[in-house]
């Protein structure tokens, strides 16, 4: 039986002040790097997905803004013949949570880096990683963990094997649970079962840091993924020397969260002791072409509602304001 706990949090004085302070500080960080704010309407008329808070405006089914990236992409594709290269946003999104204890109304700050499709993306990806690396200090988090992944490490082998959608979904669900044995169970006697299980084991290797890329040597798709591996290697080389003291870096080859959206490098920010990621993002090169624009893009979103919860339950993780 589905559990529904509608949750529209009222923020009292301290939390409201903290939200305002964090929003201002993060937007200032983004503005200093050339990201200009866009504020898409709270009401979206795009095709409304399941989980959105829907209502009728006359005869039209509309929904409260459920995702900033989708809202901004619609706005940009409609209003700009050429892409603005750096966009920031702040505000609330509304969607039914996957986990019943999460809020429906969530506060976010984020950014999108948009480029023409023929422009190389490596520098933009590193730029976003550097920006995200600055976020813990802005928020006053004593320690944080940056996870670097790449959606293509799973996407491309699944596409190469042409798995039926149901089977591909089962493989992704198994990887999401970090369970290589589940990949094997899901594939049964499929001809690609051996290859994809070996690939899953390589992705879930215990190696860490730059060494973790060596785990791909054991994958049957090592050649197919050579470009992604080089890209990750270059990103690590650029990031490691400037890693702030308060930040640990982990390479997460098996990151499959948002795999139906992300197409390349992914970023996630955690804090030691946090139960949920505090920021997430990555490259999503397919969205703008679907909207008729030859642009590529990447971005990340800082989940301020989760940070507010964390500050309430684990104040020891934050520096005093």
């Amino acid at each position, binding site marked *: 039986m589905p559990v529904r706990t509608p949750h529209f949090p009222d923020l009292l004085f301290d939390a409201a002040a903290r939200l305002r302070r964090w929003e201002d500080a993060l937007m200032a960080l983004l503005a200093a790097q050339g990201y200009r704010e866009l504020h898409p309407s709270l009401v979206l008329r795009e095709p409304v997905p399941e989980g959105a808070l829907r209502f009728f405006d006359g005869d039209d089914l509309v929904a409260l803004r459920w995702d900033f990236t989708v809202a901004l992409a619609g706005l940009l594709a409609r209003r700009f013949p050429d892409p603005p290269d750096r966009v920031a946003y702040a505000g609330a999104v509304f969607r039914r949570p996957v*986990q019943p204890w999460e809020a429906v109304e969530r506060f976010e700050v984020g950014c999108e880096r948009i480029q023409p499709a023929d422009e190389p993306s490596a520098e933009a990806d590193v730029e976003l990683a550097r920006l995200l690396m600055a976020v813990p200090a802005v928020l006053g988090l004593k320690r944080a963990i940056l996870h670097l992944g790449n959606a293509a490490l799973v996407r491309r082998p699944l596409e190469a094997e042409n798995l039926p959608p149901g089977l591909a979904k089962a493989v992704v669900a198994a990887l999401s*649970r*970090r*369970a290589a044995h*589940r990949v094997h169970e899901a594939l049964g006697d499929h001809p690609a079962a051996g290859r994809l299980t070996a690939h899953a084991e390589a992705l879930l290797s215990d190696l860490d840091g730059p060494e973790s890329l060596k785990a791909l040597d054991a994958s049957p798709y090592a050649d197919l993924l050579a470009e992604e591996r080089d890209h990750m290697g270059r990103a690590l080389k650029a990031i490691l020397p400037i890693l702030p003291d308060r930040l640990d870096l982990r390479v997460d080859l098996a990151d499959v969260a948002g795999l139906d959206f992300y197409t390349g490098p992914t970023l996630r920010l955690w804090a*030691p002791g946090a139960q949920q990621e505090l920021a997430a993002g990555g490259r999503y090169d397919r969205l703008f072409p679907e909207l008729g624009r030859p642009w590529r893009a990447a971005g990340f979103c800082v989940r301020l509602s989760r940070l507010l919860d964390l500050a309430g339950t684990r104040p020891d993780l934050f520096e005093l304001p």
Partner: protein
Amino acid sequence: MTRPLLIAFPKGRLGDELVPRLAGTPLALDAAALKSRVLRIPTATPGVAALLLKGSDLPRYVAAGVASLGIVGSDTLDELDMDLLELADLGFGACRLSLCTPAGVTLEHLQARPHLRLATKFPRATEAWLAREGLTAELVPLSSSVELAPLLGLADAIVDLVQTGSTLKAHGLVEAAVLGRSSARLVAARGATLSEPGRIKPLAEILIGALK
């Protein structure tokens, strides 16, 4: 500040199997506490305690990060589909999820019925199997004593876990089809594992070493 770490263990069949296997390990459960009615049991490792939970509640504790690790049957895991990590198939507690019918009633008999009623604790797995087989049925959700349903006319058949088959036999039921297999799995909270691997991994290795 280091917070106490909780490991969720299932009560019942799986719990009965795993508690003796942990004896002598750093995660052995305190014998005196086990004999009492408390549900939070100290282990041989300071700062690590065990929670004794009903299997169907356990994944929620782990997914919410209340417990960092847990052991639960894959049948329950699949039924609830919570957001957690599955670190290992521990192999013990193996059983089948089966369609069970009164003796003499076959799968073909059921397929021929215009209206089929199946009683089960596993509606999600049953629905998935019905979809694979191209069948439709009315599901009668029950939480215990499912074997009684066909005997008393509440359902035509049941979908339930079968280990030895003795309970089925005692109720005049037979296995007509195997829908899937289940075994104990070591699960972990996503947040704890990704944010504090140094605390979680050594404990996971102790559990795998003792139980697999």
